[in-house]
């Protein structure tokens, strides 16, 4: 079978701030920016991975959500318990320094983990948990 992972979604709370993070700090391309009713859906991805993207979406924009659910999602995002993604890079230390210098919230410095990976972790501006693995 010829199926690949194409797109994943991460919510944002401020399109400008998230763009600054993914485009300027992480160095991703901005592939699309769809605006509707003041809301933005922004497709980003690394230049070296044209076939896989992250779409930064307004939180809880899907129809069929109750107000309670919307509030819960907003609270979980603020508390940092909502969404997570793992990225990877060959140069973890340099990436960590760049992210730290940009003022992003650090969750964890580069650490050798017992599960066999060296990784670090940050928050993006919306509070999403961004882990970065070191490629060996």
């Amino acid at each position, binding site marked *: 079978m010829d199926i690949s992972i194409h797109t994943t979604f991460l919510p944002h709370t401020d399109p400008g701030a998230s763009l600054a993070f993914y485009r300027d700090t992480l160095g991703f391309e901005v592939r699309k920016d769809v605006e509707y009713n003041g809301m933005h859906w922004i497709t980003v991805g690394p230049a070296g991975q044209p076939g896989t993207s992250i779409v930064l979406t307004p939180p809880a924009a899907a129809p069929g959500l109750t107000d309670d659910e919307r*509030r819960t999602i*907003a*609270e979980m995002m*603020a*508390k*940092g318990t909502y969404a*997570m993604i*793992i990225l990877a890079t060959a140069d973890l230390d340099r990436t960590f320094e760049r992210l730290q210098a940009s003022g992003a*919230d*650090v*969750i*964890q*410095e580069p650490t050798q*983990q*017992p*599960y*066999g*990976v060296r*990784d670090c972790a940050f*928050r993006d501006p919306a*509070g999403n948990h961004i*882990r970065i*693995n070191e490629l060996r």
Partner: protein
Amino acid sequence: MRAVSRWAAILNRLPAGCWATPVRRGTIAPVTSRSTPAQHLRDLARLRRVRDRIDRDYAQPLDVEALARGANMSAGHLSRQFRLAYGESPYSYLMTRRIERAMALLRRGDLSVTDVCFEVGCASLGTFTTRFTELVGMPPGAYRRQGAPETAGIPPCVSRQVTRPIRNREAPVTDPPLD
């Protein structure tokens, strides 16, 4: 007798619930004001930063006062709000993280229980052992002898989650029914 019955006559004419309720109602202002939704989310984000700092510095002694100062709150307010948001106090959360890390180090098998205790930032072997046993269900020595569970091969972020000690061994957790 007549004085008593005069009082009884007056009392009988008063509304029934009169004595049960305070004389002045609605004059005591709420002690904590309700924050707007936006402020509430900002407060939650502050708590998240505190939690991330606890995570980042898990091997350091916990200084709730310093954490609270960094978040512009009193230590008491921080502890209360943290517990409301995350279900456990900052200290309890920190111990859970330390025990989690200790489980991983013990599974490796090359460090003694005492070494692991100090490696994860616990100052007291007794406290560490008690807390470990409470959360994991067996003492650290027994866990170390048990060796690595079958988590090899599953994604790291899932491995971290499934080997996390279960908080509700010691605190009741109410699960909503699924049906």
